[in-house]
Every structure is written in structure tokens, then in C-alpha cells.
């Protein structure tokens, strides 16, 4: 009985941030980036973090990834405190961060090899091929990152992260550097992949449409310094979602304007 309850709690609070504060020591003194961040993410939930640039949304992601340690407060993932980076929290980096001297295949293989180190070479290669296949890049597996387009690079980045079968997928402005058409394509594909894998995901973005289209909830952050969570918006649009149908959808447009109002009325960034 007790176990069942704790499992339920764990599902509700799969990723948890408790009173997280973050300050950086700079030459001009300490800079308070985040103040008192509290929220939790359910299992299989897709969360977007949105806010103006410099509000510390990437910092939140890096904290969950374990790449940064909070100044105070606690972070948990699947009931365990996050102490360092690990493959159960895979990151898709903003600038893809593929190793330029390895082929796409080897880039993914490097991740797979580490996570599933008890498996045979054939199994590992199978996992790598499957991951590249999932993002539609089987044909480019022998190419190096500088031989493929920006969109393809980001797909490899996603394949690398997904191949690790992470508990949580962390996406740091994954499509920020792509053109609008490529971005839309990749968003659609990411939606399909998420529906298939039921992976928990946290995505940092500054694109309102992207946030509403992909997320179950949108965490909206106030401007820094000492940024905090301004509001959390539930996106209860049915899935699977279709961007064309949503364009006409009243709920969608309402949610969209809600986010826009938060960003441009309530917490407009002063023009520097």
C-alpha cells in the first residue's frame, strides 16, 4: 500500500525543484540568476520553459542536467538527488555539439556505448542505427557533421540523446538556430517521437508557438536578475496535435495570447 502511494508520488513529481537559488560569481560581484524556483514535472510530461533572453531559463535546464550545482535548494529526478550529469538525463544542446571528427553514426555510438556497456557490439550498432532511423537520417550515418545541414545536425543531436533511452530529455533551445520551415518539420517529428517513447521532456525556448504546440505545461519565467517562475500555464489541447488545425483552434489561440501577454505586457523586457 505504502509502496503504491510512493510510486504515485514519484510519478507526480518525477523531476522536482525545491527552493532552488542560483548565483554566479563574476568579476563585478555575485549575480543572482534564479531565486526560489519551485516546481515539479510529472512522468511523461512535456514542459516548456519560456522567458526573455537572459532570464535564466537555460540555467534551470543546466541545473536539471547536473551541469551546474545550485547555490541552495535541491533537485530530484526519479526520487534521487541530482548530483552530477548522467545519461538518464540526456541533453539536446542548442548548437548540437556534435563532435566534428566523428561521423553521425559514431557520434551516436559514443553515447550508446557508454550507457549500455554490457551489450555486444552488434546490439550497440543496432541501437545506433535505430536511433538514426527514428530521426530519418539512416542515409547520412557515414557523413560528418560539417557535411550535413543545420537541421540534420540537430536531428543527430536528438538521435544521440534518445539513443541513451533517458528518463528525462532536456532540450536547450533545440531549434533556435534553424530556419522556420526546418524548425516546423523538426517540431512535428519531435511530437511523433515523444508520442512513441513517452519520454519526460523539458524544453527551453523563446518561441511562443513552439511552446504551445509541444507542451503539456508552460513554465513562464520573469526577467532576471533573480528570475523566478511567473506563472505556469496548462496546455490541455488534445494530442496528437496538428499545427494546421490548431491555427484555427480558439483554445490554442487563447493559450498563445496568454503567453504573449505574459511576455510582452506583464513582464516586458526593457529595451536596453
Amino acid at each position: 500500500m505504502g509502496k503504491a502511494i510512493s510510486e504515485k508520488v514519484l510519478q507526480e513529481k518525477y523531476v522536482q525543484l525545491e527552493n532552488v537559488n542560483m548565483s554566479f560569481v563574476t568579476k563585478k560581484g555575485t549575480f543572482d540568476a534564479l531565486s526560489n524556483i519551485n516546481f515539479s514535472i510529472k512522468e511523461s510530461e512535456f514542459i516548456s520553459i519560456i522567458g526573455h533572453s537572459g532570464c535564466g531559463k537555460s540555467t534551470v535546464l543546466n541545473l536539471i542536467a547536473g551541469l551546474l550545482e545550485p547555490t541552495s535548494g535541491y533537485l530530484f529526478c526519479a526520487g534521487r538527488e541530482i548530483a552530477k550529469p548522467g545519461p538518464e538525463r540526456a541533453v539536446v544542446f542548442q548548437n548540437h555539439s556534435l563532435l566534428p571528427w566523428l561521423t553521425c553514426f559514431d557520434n551516436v555510438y559514443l553515447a550508446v556505448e557508454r550507457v549500455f556497456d554490457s551489450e555486444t557490439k552488434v546490439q550497440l550498432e543496432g541501437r545506433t542505427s535505430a536511433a538514426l532511423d527514428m530521426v530519418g537520417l539512416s542515409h547520412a550515418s557515414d557523413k560528418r557533421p560539417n557535411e550535413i545541414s543545420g537541421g540534420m545536425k540537430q536531428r543527430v543531436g536528438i538521435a544521440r540523446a534518445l539513443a541513451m533511452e533517458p528518463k528525462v530529455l532536456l532540450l536547450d533551445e533545440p531549434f533556435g538556430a534553424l530556419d522556420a520551415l526546418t524548425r516546423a518539420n523538426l517540431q512535428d517529428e519531435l511530437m511523433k517521437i515523444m508520442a512513441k517513447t513517452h519520454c519526460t521532456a523539458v524544453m527551453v525556448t523563446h518561441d511562443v508557438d513552439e511552446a504551445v504546440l509541444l507542451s503539456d505545461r508552460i513554465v513562464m519565467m520573469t526577467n532576471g536578475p533573480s528570475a523566478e517562475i511567473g506563472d505556469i500555464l496548462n496546455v490541455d489541447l488534445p494530442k496528437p496535435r496538428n499545427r494546421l488545425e490548431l491555427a484555427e483552434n480558439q483554445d490554442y489561440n487563447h493559450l498563445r495570447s496568454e503567453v504573449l501577454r505574459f511576455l510582452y505586457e506583464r513582464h516586458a523586457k526593457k529595451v536596453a
Partner: protein
Amino acid sequence: MSVISINKESINSIMKSEKTIVTKVQENKIEAFVDAASVVITEKKENKFGKHVLTFFEWIFPPLLGVLLLIVIWASISYQSPNLPGPLKTWHSAVELFRNPFYVNSPNDMGIGWNILNSLKRVALGFGLAALVGIPMGFIIGRFQFFSRMAAPIISLLRPVSPLAWLPIGLLVFKAANPAAIWVIFISAIWPMIINTSVGVSKVPQDYMNVARVLNLSEWKILTKILFPYTLPYMMTGVRLSIGVAWLVIVAAEMLTGGVGIGFWVWDEWNNLNVEHIIIAIFIVGIVGLMLEQVLILIAKRFSYE
């Protein structure tokens, strides 16, 4: 004017050899262009074959002119001071010298080929040992702040020391001339490799290191999959600088230590007052150094991931 006529001929010969269909009118046109000296350059750029000839010319002419200028200066100086042999005399002497480069009369009288090979052997040994020690040291220093700070004072203190100042220490420790010469090469060639390798390692983008942290890669994997490939170009720069230094130092070291080698040979020829041979030695040292450098540039290009 001679320049233009060369080009005109080559254009015509190229056009004929390429079996290009050139009507009489076009041919006349080209000739007209070439004759009108003022428009030659611009019109040629529109002509594909002419352009090739021109780029080849632009590429080969300046270096040739430079070499020619050097020879002229050399000839005029030797004309003024008769002790210095001129280019022609040196050339004849060189032809004589290279007629039999691998003779052995006595341990102190061997062909120029043996001298060069012996110097190269010392450089290879000293430089190889320096690479063997210097490159791993560079990786450790670049990777770990602690070692970097530990090595910093030692490197800044020892690096500016003149290579030959190390020779007495080598003679004292090894009690023989040959290992002492190799030691001097080692100690003077090691610094560029340590420094360049460590700079390369410390410049590895944080993004790649974040990837390594997220993937939880082992230190060995970080070294082989991230640090080494990223650092390779820096390392090759270090290697190139090192081999330059090594070849620079060997002549001086051999002058002091003796034995068979290009440096000792120079000294020996000075004692014989055979100045032609000294000038030839200067050219040999220059050319061998240039070749070593070019080989390393080729290797560096081969291993670059870009």
C-alpha cells in the same frame, strides 16, 4: 614586353594542344589584345587559358626573382671581397662534392651524405624523445589545472634558456659527446610541443566537455574521442616548431661536440679554410630544414579533421 610575348605564345600553344576550335577571327582578336599592351591584363582575365598562364606566372615569378636577387647580391659581395667564393665557384664545388656523397676515408673524413644522415639521426632521436615526453605532458598540463599551475614556473624559467647552455650538463651527465648533443636537441625541442599541446587541450570548447559530462565518458574516452582529435592541429604546430628548433640547434651542438655530422663538417671545413663548402652547408641545412617542415605540414593536413 618579353612578358607579354611569352604569354602570347603559350596561349596559342595551349589553344592548339587543347584542340580548341578557334576561328581565325578569334585568333586575330587575341593577338590584337596581346599587342595592345595597355588592355592586355584585363582582356586576359576574360580568357580562360590566358588566365591559367597568368596565375602560373604570378605564382612562379616572385620566388624566382627572390632567389635571383639573392644570387646577385651574393655575387656582387664576393666580387668586392675575393675571400668569399661566388655562386659559380660554389656551384662547381657542390657538383664535385655531391659526385660521391657516401665515401668513407676515415672516421673524420666521410662523405657529405653521411654527415647529413648522422645529423638527421641525432635530430630524430632527440626530437622523438622530446615528442614522447612533451606531448603527454602537454595533455596532462592542459587537462588538469593543478598540473598546469605546477608546471608554469618550471616552463617559464627553463624555456628561454639558450639551447647550448644545456650542453655542459649533458656532457657531464652522459660523459659522451653524442648523447649530449641528443640531450640538447631534446631539451630545446620539448617546449613548443608541451606548450602547444596544452594550449590546445585547454581550448577544447566547453560544449564538447559538457557532452562528455552528460554521456559520463571515461577519462580515456575523453582523451581519445575529444581531447586528442581537437588538439591534433595545435599539437602539429608544436611538432613543426620543435623540428625547426631541433634542426636549428643541431648545427651549433655538433660544432661543439664533434663527430660525424653537418655541424662538425662546417667547423672542419672552416679549419681547412674551404669556404665554398661552408656556403654549401648553409644551403644544405636550409633545404633539409625546409623539407622536414614540408613533410610535417603534409602529415598535419592528412590528420586534420576539417
